[in-house]
């Protein structure tokens, strides 16, 4: 077959039955091989380390084979690279092919091709399988990051020389894909092509194997099993039965996938070359890249965005590459490509929106990526990633972070016994042995709570066979409490921050309470102080009331008991009783005034009045009394009228009180009192001074205290009636109520004390 190649007839569905097509049989043989190789036993996990080792060896074989051909072509058929390129330069047609514009799509196409290859290397299922799924240790990536590019470099080293040599030496009709075979064959070297064929065969089968296993695993683990596990009957099935299901699904998937591959080859094979088929699929799987890469670096990417991006990307890819492929193969009307659907020019699949001149791959890549990335970013901006998505992203992107390795994601509890049962049912005894290797089996142990590490180990074991989605469902079924997914984690965080918030509020409350307590304490102290003052006041009032009452009672009893009292004595004593009664009445009145002032219930009747008149009336009222006592009273009223807002009766009471006090404290021998009324700025001042001893500085405020009796220097000269000690406090209260002030100063003219009352001038409109 090898020697006859490429002259052997091509199989095709059109002229012979498909069962005569050897490609079909190759596909079926491969299916059997993969089923035997990849789904051999129950614990057929997602990982196939044996297979990976075989593929690794195969890739080495391929590399050696390809490089051997390269060396053979360059150094046997030609005398080194220089000779090859010199010969190429002699042929203008060939030299032209080396120019960049000979690449389909020109420079743009070249760049587009590079991007496609770059994306495909990450997202092709087989690449993803080996790079991610089969990865047993993240640290392997470090080596892979230089070894894999090196491999690619080496295997591509002789691509251009072999291609040029093939074009120079080979039959023009030859398929360039076969140069590696035809060049050594035509040179008569028969051993090398055999080796290359084995290399190529192993490379091709290896690729098919890995691809098929990857896809079948994805189909069984991510699509079918999670669906099936939703049905109860699977949980109730016999131990090992589930694994049977799983293997069955995978085997069916393998056969179906290979048949699909064969169908594509049979139906589309004429339209696209091998490279073309590859590029079409590259462009397809490249649609996964935006979600994968953007998701890695942009935490804002959301599931919704990824879904929409994928759907749109695949849609555009299908329309711009897949559908035209069908058309070119005769399965669709070519009018789609030439005129566009329904004759709409700008919807032509190869020239979408009028974009022409690009190769079909770059064209498709541009539009599909635009739709994909646009929707991914757009939808992500309008939707928030759920906490679960964020956590998954964190665990995925921080895989190398030491703190996250071995992170347990379980919060609930289960017993070791239950875990054993679960593993035995789904994975069988062997797996059980592995997971519980270091734990002795006993009744005690079965009842013990399984550690988080053990639960995680069990989940990993299940995930190995059934896929992570199914494993999560199963572990959930035995673990009481839910799996600690990100939502759980975040809710714990939430709870913690809520607790912190509560604590903060509690602290605030307790601070508040402490403050209120402090306020209460001080209020209590104030109340005690007020209580003490009230007691004192009551005692003082009692004392002041008892004094006149004592005289009244004594003389009343004397009058009652003394039948033979001389008339003048009787009259005298009756006079005392009347006088003391008046004193008592006055005192009661004052006490009531004071109480009203202090409780704010003092009724004043403020209206515009002339203070000069009130002052004059007060002087008139008291002058006779003062005269009787020999007090010289003079008044100097400088302003008239002195309009203020006030209560006439109360002001008269205040002024008389001031004059009376001044009289009491005036000089004993030549008592003098002077009243003055004058203007001071926007106020009127009424001063009453005497020629007594004056009031010392530290007494000047105390004279306004209730029941304060001026001691020593300010003492009332003998023979003068004492006051109650309430006159000044009441006067000050009244003045304050009228918006004025009352205070003590040194007398400016007479040398004794001077009391000054100041009241604001009435507003002009009131005058």
């Amino acid at each position: 077959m090898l020697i006859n190649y490429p002259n052997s007839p091509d199989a095709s569905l059109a002229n012979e039955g498909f069962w005569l097509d050897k490609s079909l049989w190759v596909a079926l043989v491969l299916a059997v091989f993969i089923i035997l190789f990849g789904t051999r036993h129950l614990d057929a996990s997602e990982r196939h380390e044996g297979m990976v080792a075989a593929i690794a060896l195969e890739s080495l074989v391929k590399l050696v084979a390809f490089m051997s051909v390269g060396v053979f072509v360059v150094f046997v058929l030609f005398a080194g690279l220089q000779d090859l390129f010199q010969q190429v330069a002699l042929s203008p047609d060939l030299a032209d092919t080396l120019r960049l514009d000979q690449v389909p799509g020109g420079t743009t196409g070249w760049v587009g091709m590079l991007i496609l290859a770059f994306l495909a290397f990450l997202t092709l299922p087989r690449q993803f399988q080996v790079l991610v799924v089969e990865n047993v240790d993240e640290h392997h990536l470090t080596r892979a990051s230089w070894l894999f590019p090196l491999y690619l470099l080496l295997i591509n080293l002789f691509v251009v020389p072999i291609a040029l040599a093939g074009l120079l030496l080979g039959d023009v009709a030859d398929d360039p894909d076969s140069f590696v075979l035809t060049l050594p064959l035509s040179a008569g070297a028969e051993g090398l092509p055999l080796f290359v064929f084995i290399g190529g065969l192993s490379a091709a089968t290896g690729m098919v194997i890995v691809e098929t296993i990857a896809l079948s695993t994805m189909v069984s683990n991510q699509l079918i099993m999670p669906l099936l596990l939703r049905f109860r009957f699977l949980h109730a099935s016999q131990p090992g039965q589930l694994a049977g299901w799983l293997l069955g699904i995978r085997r069916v998937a393998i056969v179906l996938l290979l048949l699909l591959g064969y169908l594509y080859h049979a139906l589309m094979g004429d339209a696209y070359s091998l490279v073309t088929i590859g590029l079409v699929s590259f462009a397809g799987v490249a649609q996964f890249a935006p979600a994968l890469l953007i998701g890695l670096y942009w935490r804002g990417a959301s599931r919704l965005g990824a879904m929409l991006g994928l759907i749109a990307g695949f849609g555009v890819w299908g329309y711009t590459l897949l559908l035209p492929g069908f058309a070119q193969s005769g399965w669709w009307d070519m009018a789609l490509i030439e005129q566009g659907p329904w004759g709409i020019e700008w919807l032509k699949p190869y020239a979408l929106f009028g974009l022409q001149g690009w190769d079909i791959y770059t064209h498709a890549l541009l539009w599909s990526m635009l739709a994909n990335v646009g929707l991914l970013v757009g939808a992500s901006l309008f939707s928030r990633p759920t906490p679960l998505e964020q956590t998954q992203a964190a665990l995925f992107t921080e895989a190398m972070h030491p703190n996250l390795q071995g992170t347990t994601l379980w919060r609930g509890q289960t017993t070791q016994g239950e875990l054993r049962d679960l593993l035995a049912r789904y994975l069988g005894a062997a797996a059980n042995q592995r997971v519980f290797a270091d734990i002795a089996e006993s009744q005690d142990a079965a009842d013990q709570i399984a550690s988080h590490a053990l639960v995680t180990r069990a989940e990993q074991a299940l995930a190995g066979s059934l896929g992570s989605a199914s494993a999560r469902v199963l572990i959930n079924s035995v673990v009481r409490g839910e799996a600690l997914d990100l939502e759980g984690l975040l809710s714990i965080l939430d709870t913690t921050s809520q607790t912190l918030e509560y604590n903060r509020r509690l602290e605030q409350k307790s601070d508040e309470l402490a403050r209120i307590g402090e306020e209460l304490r001080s209020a209590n102290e104030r109340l005690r102080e007020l209580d003490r003052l009230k007691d004192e006041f009551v005692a003082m009032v009692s004392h002041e009331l008892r004094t006149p009452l004592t005289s009244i009672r004594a003389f009343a009893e004397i009058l009652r008991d003394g039948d033979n009292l001389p008339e003048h004595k009787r009259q005298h004593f009756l006079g005392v009783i009347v006088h003391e009664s008046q004193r008592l009445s006055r005192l009661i009145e004052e006490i009531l005034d004071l109480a009203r002032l202090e409780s704010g219930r003092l009724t004043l009747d403020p209206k515009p009045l002339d203070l000069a008149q009130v002052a004059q009336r007060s002087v008139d009222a008291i002058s006779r009394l003062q005269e009787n006592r020999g007090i010289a009273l003079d008044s100097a009223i400088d302003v008239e009228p002195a309009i203020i807002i006030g209560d006439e009766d109360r002001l008269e009471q205040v002024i008389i009180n001031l004059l009376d006090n001044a009289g009491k404290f005036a000089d004993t021998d030549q008592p003098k009192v002077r009243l003055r009324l004058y203007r001071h700025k926007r106020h009127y001042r009424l001063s009453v001074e005497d020629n007594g001893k004056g009031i010392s500085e530290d007494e000047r405020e105390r004279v306004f205290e209730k029941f304060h009796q001026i001691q020593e220097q300010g003492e009332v000269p003998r023979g003068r009636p004492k006051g109650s000690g309430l006159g000044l406090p009441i006067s000050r209260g009244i003045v304050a109520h009228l918006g004025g002030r009352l205070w003590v100063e040194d007398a400016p003219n007479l040398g004794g004390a001077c009391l000054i009352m100041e009241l604001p001038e009435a507003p002009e409109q009131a005058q």
Partner: protein
Amino acid sequence: MANILVVDDEPNIVLSLEFLMEQAGYKVTTAEDGEQALACVESTPPDLILLDISLPGISGFDVLEQLRAQAATERLPIIMLTAHGREVEREKGMAMGADDYVTKPFSTQALVEKVRQLIGEEAS
């Protein structure tokens, strides 16, 4: 005839006490404040003192204390008069050696009776 010293700063109260004591047959000396009272005790030693507590200057308590401190007046009968009805003051007065304590306003008959008793005791 026994001599009674009346000490009070209220003229009308002094007047009534003076009349009452004279009517009861005693000779009366009066003083308006503590200093006068002490001077009177010095010049005309009384047989009994009616002593008001709230006096200008030195108080009735001070006068009492000084008199009790002197040998001559150590046992002199003294009746305290006060317009303060509080029990504390009564106890304080009694503790300081007052013979009796009368709250104003007082019953004239009761007061005269007390004076009689104290002077009688002294006489006997």
